[in-house]
């Protein structure tokens, strides 16, 4: 079994058997998406900001980065043959364990649930919220996942854009 570990801001997409994707979550959320027909799956790991607790990150900015993180994962899956209309999801994380960050975990979890609802993606397993860190293992080809609560301290970076450009591109053509 080949193992692929991802960290905050990353995603991995797999279309072959015998691969497990894993990550360690605190306030972050991991969406495990899979197309059961094409047998393509992928996981991301993202942290949004929290409006109010961090004035640099507004609600619309949060959604912007969250939607982009999901789009990167879905586009990568579609490039390997997944079809948007067949996607299913398992959602994990969003714990409120980091002191000083308020309910940032809940904000992340709410975003993930709302996104799946808006996009019409059926959600299978969810283990969101609470106060414990989680270790997630996902078999993308099979669409199966496992979530274990852990006591490890999860290193978390402050909320950052998935990709930096906010000004709209650096290739001057116009």
């Amino acid at each position, binding site marked *: 079994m080949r193992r692929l570990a991802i960290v905050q801001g990353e995603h991995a997409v797999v279309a072959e058997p015998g691969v497990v994707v894993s990550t360690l979550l605190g306030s972050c959320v991991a969406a495990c998406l899979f197309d059961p027909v094409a047998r393509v799956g992928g996981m991301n790991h993202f942290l949004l900001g929290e409006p109010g607790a961090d004035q640099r990150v507004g609600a*619309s*900015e949060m*959604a*912007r*980065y969250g*939607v*982009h993180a*999901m*789009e*990167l994962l*879905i*586009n990568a899956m*579609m490039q390997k043959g997944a*079809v*948007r209309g067949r996607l299913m999801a398992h959602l994990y994380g969003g714990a409120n364990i980091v002191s000083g960050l308020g309910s940032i975990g809940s904000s992340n979890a709410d975003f993930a649930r709302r*996104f799946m609802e*808006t*996009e*019409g993606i059926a959600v299978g397993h969810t283990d969101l919220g609470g106060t414990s860190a989680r270790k997630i293992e996902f078999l993308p080809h099979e669409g199966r996942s496992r979530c274990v609560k852990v006591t490890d301290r999860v290193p978390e970076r402050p909320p950052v*854009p*998935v*990709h*930096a*450009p*906010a*000004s*709209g*591109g650096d*290739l001057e*053509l*116009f």
Partner: protein
Amino acid sequence: MPAAAAIKVMVVDDQTSMRAMIRRALQDLGFKDVRDKPSAQEALAAVKSDRVHLIISDYNMPEMDGLQFLEAVRTDAVIGKTVFIMLTGSSDKEIVQKAAALGVNNYVVKPFAPAALKEKIERVFGELT
């Protein structure tokens, strides 16, 4: 100097959340007539039957992608001169160059702030009042 309210816009993206976000950003900028479609084929049919002034389209879409959509617009005798702004990923420089060759008016890299979208639209239409 056109008022944003007078500009008819078609937003094309296969992700519902992205379309909703762009719609909101445009409405905040004063645009009143904003339509959206989840695919380039549907958008092409819609703008042929009811013309718009501005098309804002994602590049990365299944079946007909943003470049194919742009080409279909530019080669149409009726809607060929419609302003076309493409949404791309950060690593799509080659795509932007191809889009420029096909006659795209501007492009915006995702994830973008509403201010960046406004700036790109104003570079084509002039200041939005």
